[in-house]
């Protein structure tokens, strides 16, 4: 009898737990998981957004793999990611170390560094377009004070991608700074005190204590950064529309054009899927090499 009662109570608890997570589960299934499978299904069709889709097999995939435009934009996307991720990590860690100090008024700086993160990307992009403007931009104004001719930050194909990357780093450091700050505050002060007693200087403490203990944070930051930078779209679309001379046409821009300018939803879905698989493989690879490193240690 007691056993039956115990079972019923346990069952009730489990049911209650499931009931609590049901809304979130339903939301995710409906708006996240289902669209992924619908998109996969569309990638095998000629869907144009309006008329009924027709099954075309692997035609979309074969088409995109044969397009040099697709590979070039993929290459640019990776170039952008490799430029943004390391610099973003270094700067955000540096900022986290600074704001980790318990100095009066540090809260203001934490908020100030985080402010760009909560500003909409479109607004940020427009402001940076003004900053970069060759005629009226403040950056070129400062350069002119040193008799430096105007730099075409967004108009020159060799500068455009780097200029957008700088903006992206500026906007993203606040987010990673908070993540690193949380990681730093999780490291026990006792370790630093013990190291000081043993004669380790700040530099040695950083590389022997801080960096190794921040490893899970690095893994998280890199994984999230890979996912977000490879999906880059808004800043490219607003600031350069993929130009000049296609120098900022990332895969995100190409997907948008195919879907909403050319109404090739099936083709765009195929590109999205290829990008999704690449992101998933890279994220897994990142997690695996870090796990392997942990096992070896």
């Amino acid at each position: 009898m007691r056993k039956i009662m115990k079972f019923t109570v346990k069952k009730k608890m489990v049911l209650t737990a499931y009931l609590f997570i049901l809304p979130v589960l339903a939301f995710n299934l409906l708006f996240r998981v289902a669209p992924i499978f619908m998109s996969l299904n569309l990638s095998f069709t000629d869907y144009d957004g309006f008329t009924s889709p027709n099954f075309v097999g692997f035609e979309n995939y074969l088409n995109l793999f044969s397009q040099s435009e697709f590979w070039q934009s993929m290459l640019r996307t990776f170039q952008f990611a490799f430029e943004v991720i390391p610099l973003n990590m270094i700067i955000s860690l540096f900022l986290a170390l600074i704001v980790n100090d318990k100095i009066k008024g540090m809260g203001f700086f934490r908020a100030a560094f985080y402010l760009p993160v909560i500003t909409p990307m479109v607004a940020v992009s427009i402001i940076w377009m003004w900053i970069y403007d060759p005629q009226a931009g403040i950056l070129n104004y400062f350069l002119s004070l040193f008799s430096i001719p105007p730099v075409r930050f967004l108009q020159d194909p060799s500068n455009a991608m780097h200029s957008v990357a700088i903006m992206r780093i500026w906007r993203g450091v606040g987010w990673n700074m908070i993540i690193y700050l949380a990681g730093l505050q999780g490291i026990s002060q006792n370790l630093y005190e013990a190291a000081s007693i043993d004669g380790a200087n700040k530099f040695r403490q950083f590389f022997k204590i801080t960096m190794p203990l921040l490893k899970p944070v690095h893994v998280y930051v890199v994984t999230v950064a890979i996912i977000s930078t490879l999906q880059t779209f808004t800043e490219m679309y607003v600031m350069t529309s993929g130009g000049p001379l296609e120098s900022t046409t990332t895969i995100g821009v190409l997907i948008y054009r195919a879907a909403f300018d050319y109404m090739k939803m099936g083709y765009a879905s195929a590109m999205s899927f290829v990008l999704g698989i690449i992101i998933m493989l890279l994220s897994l690879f990142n997690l695996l090499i870090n796990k392997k490193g942990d096992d070896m240690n």
Partner: protein
Amino acid sequence: MIKKQLLVLLVLSTFSLFCLGSGTVKIWFAGTNKPLIEEVENVLIPEFEKENPGIKVKAEFIPWGELSTKLTTSFAGGIGPDIFMHGQAAIAGFAEKEIIAAIDDYIYGIEDFADFGSTLDAGVYRGKSYFIPVFGSGRLIAYRTDFFQNAGLNPEEPPITWEQLRNYAISLTKKGNNGRVSTFGLNLPVEGVDLQQSWTAFLIQNGGGLFDENLNPIFNSSEGLEALNYYIQLVQKDKVSPDYTLQGMGNVHPLAAGTVAMSYIVLEDLAQMKMYSPKETEKIKVMLPTVREERASFYSFAGFMVSNSTRNKEDTIKVLNHFTSKKSITGINRALNSLPPRQSCVEADFISGNPDIGMFVKGSKYAFGNPNMPNWVQARDILVKYLERAVKGVMGSQDALDSAAKEISALK
């Protein structure tokens, strides 16, 4: 008992929703211009609803940049508008996919439809009418009269031929003490849709065309090559036009800021300059398009299309008639400071009292628009890509035009 009450409530609410939905016509306007919203919400809709008590009009204003995306998703979700506004270049694509309905049977019901003149032709695709133009915009060259005077040129006699345009641009280009150009004689776009529209004007002025009647590319002709070489000469060789796009609205528009002496503008640029830089705008005049074989300038109209999925065509057509009447077209164009497609609107105060808008109206005599072809946006982007390569000197002009033609032909 409670169950029964709930059931009755459900049936009643569904019925009332159905009744409400059946008498409502959804209309989407392109753009979020405040005076337009006020004109539609405060004048045009109340007028219509007063005359047609059984029909409600629900207007939405969609930013141009989001229009295609929102139309696609709303139609895919089965909640698209009954009437929507779009550029004339979208007609072929929508008609081909049967998104929009042919309105030939209803066009005669529109108040004085002959008043639209040839602008209605822009809405014809494969012999059927799909589009009623509402407002237009043209691309003409504007110039600074004070810069003309400083360079010893008569501001009352702007350039007419290509040779004159080039010579004027050379005379008007000024260098600063540091040896760098402080004022460019001419501002030609070097990227994006603006480049395509400006180059196409030179192509047509030179007697060429973009496509033949079977929609095969013909722009890689000798006329096209000559037009492109002329364009490149101004940008790369004479350096009278910047090799990057000088842009800005209001007081930072290159004309208002004084960094260029002549520049392609649209009516909206002029209105913005007038608002934020009234003194400088007084020194700006608009000229008719230049000529080689003929005059030509790019004009486009935005207008209404009727959705094929509209549930109440009768009410929808009534709304369409109201929003394309003389009074409505005048009101909308006054609000937008744009070009009305109705001939009779030329006498309206906002046009007759403004010589610059008057010049745009005169210029519309030489107007050409985008071709009505299903893959136009993709074809245009391909053309832009190769024109940009040629203008920026990374590809030869003939090679660029041939490559664009080849790629566009493959779209078929």
